[in-house]
């Protein structure tokens, strides 16, 4: 058995109560489905004094899909996101991404919010205390060097969420609540702004802040898709992934969005490729050129299975395949 470290469990019944608990206990961590955090806690990576379980917070559970777009609460289970027919139809990339997370049974437990706020991952970090002690601690936990890229000043742990690249490609905005001492304050911003290219402080959320949900714009004929590369057909995190969304209007591509996952400490938006394609007519040569630009956007280090060069080349191939399928 790998027992969880001791902690005090809080189960707030409202968003305000949850935020207050977090604000008042600096060593508290929010827990959603627990499929990421509990694993890390068993491995001794986190030992929060208080765990704030969000399952009973009603404000996080909403699901609204309407003409003007959709709002998906952070506490929605990945299985619900995966199975919702309206999402499948309008935001295919998201439902494909949710279906690609881990395995179906984990999709019954893991939440969309947990997936969006997923911790970054690295071979040298996601290990037991025994292993890390034996190998030497790393920047992200207890150490002062990066084991993956010795000499590096920063942590290169990878952001491996499946849904985040899809959501960003679809133009999602994050709704975040913070505690002003008395009540919950809500704000919204483009989801990409939640992330930082830093394996350690991966998301721009304060101790007293929570992700409430994700707002998707009206789909307006946008077609989207998500492809994930991993060693096995299930269980595995992505080693590289690509989400693409675009709209075809009068034979040209519009609102093109290409986002890469699992190749850096944050999702990577492939601006050059997007610019190249925006307003252009799709042709095999053009799509190939775009895919090549995508490959240039990242330089992963060796901290996952597979070689960095191969993971990059997969991003290129998958991007081309998605574009070819969608730009019709």
């Amino acid at each position, binding site marked *: *058995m*790998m*027992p*969880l*470290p*001791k*902690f*005090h*469990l809080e*189960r707030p019944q409202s968003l305000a109560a949850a935020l207050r608990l977090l604000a008042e206990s600096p060593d508290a961590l929010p*827990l959603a489905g*627990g*499929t990421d955090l*509990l*694993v890390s806690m*068993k*491995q001794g990576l986190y030992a929060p004094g208080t*765990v704030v*379980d969000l*399952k009973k917070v009603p404000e996080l559970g909403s699901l609204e899909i309407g003409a003007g777009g959709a709002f998906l609460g952070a506490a929605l289970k990945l*299985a619900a996101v995966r199975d919702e027919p309206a999402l499948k139809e309008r935001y295919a990339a998201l439902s494909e991404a949710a279906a690609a997370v*881990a*395995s*179906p*049974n*984990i999709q*019954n*437990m893991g939440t969309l919010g947990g997936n969006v706020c997923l911790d970054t991952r690295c071979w040298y970090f996601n290990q037991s205390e025994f292993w890390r002690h034996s190998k030497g601690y790393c920047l992200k936990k207890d150490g002062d060097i990066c084991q993956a890229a010795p000499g590096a000043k920063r942590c290169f742990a990878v952001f491996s969420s499946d849904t985040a690249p899809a959501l960003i490609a679809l133009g999602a905005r994050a709704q975040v609540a913070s505690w002003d001492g008395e009540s919950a304050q809500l704000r919204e911003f483009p989801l990409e702004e939640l992330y930082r290219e830093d394996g350690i402080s991966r998301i721009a959320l304060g101790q007293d802040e929570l992700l409430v949900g994700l707002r998707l714009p009206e789909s307006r004929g946008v077609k989207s898709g998500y492809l994930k590369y991993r060693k096995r*057909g*299930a*269980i595995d995190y992505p080693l590289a992934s690509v989400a693409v969304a675009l709209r075809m209007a009068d034979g040209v591509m519009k609102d093109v969005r290409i986002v890469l996952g699992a190749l850096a400490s944050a999702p990577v938006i492939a601006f050059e490729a997007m610019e190249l394609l925006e307003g252009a007519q799709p042709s095999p040569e053009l799509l190939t050129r775009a895919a090549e630009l995508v490959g240039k956007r990242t330089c992963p280090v060796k901290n996952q299975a597979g070689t960095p060069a191969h993971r990059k080349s997969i991003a290129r191939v998958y991007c081309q395949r998605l574009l070819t399928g969608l730009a019709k």
Partner: protein
Amino acid sequence: MIIVKMTVNGNPIEVGVGDEETLLETLRQRLGLTGTKQGCDLGDCGSCTVLIDGKPALSCLTLAADAEGREITTIEGLAHGEDLHPVQRAFHEAGAVQCGFCTPGMVLTAKALLDANPNPDRDTIKGALAGNLCRCTGYVKIVDAVENAAKVYPRARVEEAR
């Protein structure tokens, strides 16, 4: 200590659990329901799968406190007395059990699948069970068993309801 009220295999149960206790610990150690297996304790293998309100979930990554008010089904709760559940029977007859360590998780996941979709094709079965590892069987007979169970499923369920 947190007092948790839940239903386990149809029986209402009240049990005191630690804040940091997993449902797997509670089932195996406090309730003696050792049919639920622990293969990794990290969410990687599926052997600890139980049904929570009918849906498969990994008990090694579920806090016991979260079982409050839920209906938990473990492998011990599937058969009606001597009568095996159709999925159990199909596993038996198809030779889908070897060492049996993955079996409880496989059977429960398969039951949940058939409850939701009594006529899955082979690929759907594989997709649904893909998070459950088995080292012995090479999987073929497990998928066969689920297919066979599906053939009798609606009828068997009617019988069960009676």
